[in-house]
């Protein structure tokens, strides 16, 4: 029986010989299959998000009311502008990446270096933007009240616009301070107290008939949250449990805690991909500079890393749609 022994290996083919069944090198093909499996992971997460969203579709937070900040425009209601900017940054860094790949095909080291640098910068700016987005979400905008059963009550003025707690709550004299280790049991910790106590919020609400509340329930006709008139609001506020400021994994002033959980998890997982993409890009960037690929005779490594980078962009396109648009 004859045995085939590989005699030649040009470095881009399968190690077992020069057969390339799918016309791609081993590394590139495996990058594609890694991307496939990672795409399925993200679909699992976004699918779980979709399940919960359909389950609570009559009371899910409205993204336009959650993400309304834009740098240097304080107090200006700017839904989606910021996330649109982030999307452009990421698409543009994808463009510079594909230009680097293109320059690599022409063995143009200078251009590859330049475009890789732009790609890294784009990725870093995106990461910074996402951190800022998280900061705003965690700190919150308006403040709300949580009921005993976990529902969120927000405050609105006579025109139906949501108002901040600061705009109507008057502080009352109170002895309550944050519990820290040096004031009592050293093993008991307490999170930062909300800016107002529940009592202050309820008392201020009672004394101000112009303001009212709204519940999470969305009216299917107008797709807006249900407004409760001032006269009926005390029925809700008698059930109030605590004041909520901002969002974290346990509570969310904008509505369902699940929304915060999925937002942190999915954008966090995507952000982690961007971070690792930036780190890999930096490694490849230095390899380009020291001439590794020039000596190897081809820039296929830039292409493979490029695939990963475009995939990160691809995932963001879907995250953008499902968290901000739909």
């Amino acid at each position: 029986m004859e045995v085939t022994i590989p005699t030649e290996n040009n470095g881009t083919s399968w190690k077992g010989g020069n057969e390339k069944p799918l016309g791609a090198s081993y590394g590139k093909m495996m990058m594609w299959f890694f991307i496939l499996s990672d795409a399925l992971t993200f679909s699992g997460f976004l699918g779980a998000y979709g399940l919960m969203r359909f389950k609570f579709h009559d009371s899910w937070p409205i993204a336009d009311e959650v993400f309304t900040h834009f740098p240097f425009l304080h107090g200006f209601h700017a839904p989606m502008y910021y996330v649109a900017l982030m999307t452009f940054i990421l698409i543009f860094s994808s463009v510079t990446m594909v230009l680097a790949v293109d320059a690599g095909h022409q063995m143009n080291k200078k251009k590859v270096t330049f475009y890789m640098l732009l790609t890294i910068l784009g990725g870093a700016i995106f990461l910074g933007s996402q951190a800022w987005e998280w900061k705003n979400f965690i700190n919150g905008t308006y403040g709300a009240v949580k009921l005993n059963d976990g529902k969120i009550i927000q405050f609105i003025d006579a025109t139906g616009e949501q108002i901040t707690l600061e705009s109507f709550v008057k502080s009352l004299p109170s002895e309550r301070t944050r519990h820290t280790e040096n004031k009592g049991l050293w093993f008991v910790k307490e999170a930062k107290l909300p800016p107002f106590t529940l009592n202050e919020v309820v008392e201020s609400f009672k004394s101000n008939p112009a303001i009212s509340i709204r519940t999470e329930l969305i009216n299917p006709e107008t797709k807006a949250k249900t407004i409760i008139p001032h006269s009926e609001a005390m029925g809700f506020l008698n059930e109030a449990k605590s004041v909520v400021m901002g969002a974290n994994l346990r509570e969310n002033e904008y509505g369902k805690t699940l929304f915060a959980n999925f937002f942190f998890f999915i954008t966090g997982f995507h952000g982690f991909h961007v971070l690792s993409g930036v780190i890999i890009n930096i490694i490849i960037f230095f390899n380009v500079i020291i001439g590794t690929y020039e000596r190897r005779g081809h820039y296929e490594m830039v292409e493979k890393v490029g695939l990963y980078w475009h995939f990160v962009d691809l995932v963001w396109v879907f995250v953008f749609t499902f968290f901000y648009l739909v």
Partner: protein
Amino acid sequence: MTHAQEHTSHTKLIWKVFAILSVITIVEVALGITKPAALYLTKFLGTSPLNIIFLVLTIVKAYYITWFFMHMADEKKGLRRAVVWTAVFLIIFLATLLLIEGSYINDILGPLTKWNY
């Protein structure tokens, strides 16, 4: 892609794809901010027409990124199908079951949720 083509620059195509992706994103954001009542408050295929538009535009964007930025168009048919068909089939399968189940839970749970106090 033949060997000779490999060394020609595709810069023009890249900028064209960037222009297409930008226009789609701008349309999405504009629709998302204005939310025209005729598209947002009406129903079509179980959701609003606006949501359908967003989904279609997203898939168009995904197509351009995969085909032209990731050069899927230049891969052999076998590799392309192994990756794209697998993903498309499994994602549709998973999403369909999860979303049907989600709205079933809503049908059962929704009426039991207390909204008046």
